């Protein structure tokens, strides 16, 4: 536990705390000869208590003024979970239902379903470190890897804002992988890609992604939200001429992921229920011991100081009322 001050020069006022040593606050009356008064242990104890209380009250006030606080800390913890980066698709199509229509109340949009299910998923996994990245035309950095559940929920809820433009998956993947860069290698590292479409990956990006996936030791889950009547990721085109990345980006992205030689699992969800099934699968699979540092934020202690000072001053005031004059 490390203590620090906001304005340390206030500590100079701690000198005032010695004042009660010279005056215990009770107005003395002249007495001819102290030898005639017995030495009373009870009175001595009360006198010491009074002085100590007054000194502590002054010290507490000064510490409060100086802004005593506990500095931010990190604590080493071990839990069962994973480092998970959620990579969310924010393209326009995510705002449509699984049927490819504008949501009308009966059916929820893919984005809403994803939000709801991911919220539950996060709630069920208390020890995970989660980060969130989004992508559309450009990648969006939302939240670094953290165990702050409130921040994660807030970030997931923030995807309720209307979606953006197109799908540029390679840049999004790049950012998701980047998030693991400075993290200690502990527990499993998962990228959970939630998207409803894909795009072709240019050869430059492909090379870099291959390297990054290998270096970061990533496990990849792709939750593909398939819209009705759109090509699936496992489908082979009937016409061999259509078998190219431009015509079937989903299939080629799947092939790319499969060729990475990393643990990879693709889920093709065609309804919210299927999506829930996929998330439950991931939830079940990813339980490895995780070693991580929990951050403890700075704690302001000046309130406690003032509380103590108030209590002590109240005690001294009560004693003052108990004072008698000869």
């Amino acid at each position: 536990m490390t203590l620090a001050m906001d304005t340390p020069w206030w500590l100079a006022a701690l000198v005032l705390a010695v004042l009660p040593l010279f005056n215990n606050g009770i107005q003395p009356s002249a007495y001819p000869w102290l030898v005639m008064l017995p030495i009373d242990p009870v009175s001595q104890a009360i006198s010491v208590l009074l002085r100590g209380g007054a000194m502590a009250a002054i010290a507490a006030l000064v510490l409060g003024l100086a802004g005593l606080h506990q500095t931010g800390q990190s604590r080493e913890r071990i839990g069962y979970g994973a480092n998970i980066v959620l990579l969310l698709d924010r393209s326009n199509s995510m705002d449509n239902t699984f049927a490819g229509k504008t949501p009308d109340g009966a059916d929820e949009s893919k984005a809403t379903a994803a939000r709801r299910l991911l919220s539950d998923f996060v709630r069920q996994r208390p020890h995970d470190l989660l980060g969130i990245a989004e992508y559309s035309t450009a990648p969006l950095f939302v939240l670094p890897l953290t165990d702050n559940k409130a921040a994660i929920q807030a970030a997931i809820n923030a995807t309720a804002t209307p979606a953006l433009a197109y799908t540029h998956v390679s840049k999004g993947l790049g950012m998701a992988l980047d998030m693991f860069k400075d993290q200690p290698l502990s527990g499993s590292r998962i990228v959970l890609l939630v998207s409803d479409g894909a795009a072709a990956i240019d050869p430059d990006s492909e090379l870099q992604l291959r390297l990054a996936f290998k270096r970061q030791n990533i496990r990849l889950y792709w939750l593909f939200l398939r819209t009705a009547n759109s090509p699936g990721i496992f489908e082979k085109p009937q016409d061999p001429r259509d078998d190219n990345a431009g015509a079937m980006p989903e299939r080629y992205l799947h092939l790319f992921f499969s060729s990475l030689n990393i643990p990879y699992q693709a889920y093709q969800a065609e309804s919210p229920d299927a999506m829930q099934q996929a998330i439950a699968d991931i939830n079940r699979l990813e339980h490895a011991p995780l070693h991580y540092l929990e951050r403890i934020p700075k704690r302001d202690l000046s309130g406690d100081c003032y509380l103590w000072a108030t209590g002590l001053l109240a005690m001294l005031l009560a004693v003052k009322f108990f004072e008698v004059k000869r």
Partner: protein
Amino acid sequence: MPSSRVYPGAHVGRRVSSGHLFKQHEPFIAHPDPRRIDLRASVLDVFGQYRVRVYQQHSLIDVLLLADLSASMGQNKALLLASLDSIAGSAFSYGDRFSFIACGGETTPRYQLSHCQQRGALQAFSKQLQTARFTPQNPTWQALLPHLPNRPSLVFLLSDFHFDLASLAPILPQLRQHDVIPLVVWQTGDYENLPEWGLASFQDSESRATRTLFMRPALRRKIVQNFQKRRRHLQNFFRRFGCEPVFLQDHFQAAQLQAYFLQRVA
């Protein structure tokens, strides 16, 4: 014995000498003073001897009041002035001479009134004494000795005796020729009339040290006991030097002194 010389009230001297008051006739052989021969008495004498008139000696006594002016006596100022008035007044009414010497912490007495026989001088002195400063030290009794008369006198020693009696012990034998009456003045507020409950802080008038006490009936009883013990101790101490102290509480009461003197004769 010194105490045998003191009687309560005014009374004639037992010695004969050159006074104004006729006492008796004596044979010339007993008082061979030809100036005092009483011719009429000599003629009437059956044995034909000369008779001489003898007169009472005009006898006076010095009354001294030695007062402690240390800081602890500050609360007894009124009592001090009252006793000064009363003792000096009764000395004047018998024609005795009154002296007052104040004894503070210094080596020479600051307030001194010698051989005063007039009320006016006493009143002026009393006024001066009202503004007296009390010294924050114990009284130095040694400083008084040079100012005491050689003739046997009546000496009142007015103090609260709240100091170590060892400082007084070497002084008292030197006052043996005088008739010493210690007047112990205490304020009941210092012991009997202390509050029963509560927190009180006491500061020593002389050393300035303070002591905080949580007053309660048991503690007050203890303090009263301390004062009773001190009273016995003072009595024993002064009896060793052949004097009996008078304890005055809160006020000076002449009746108390009167009773004291009457007790001594009985």
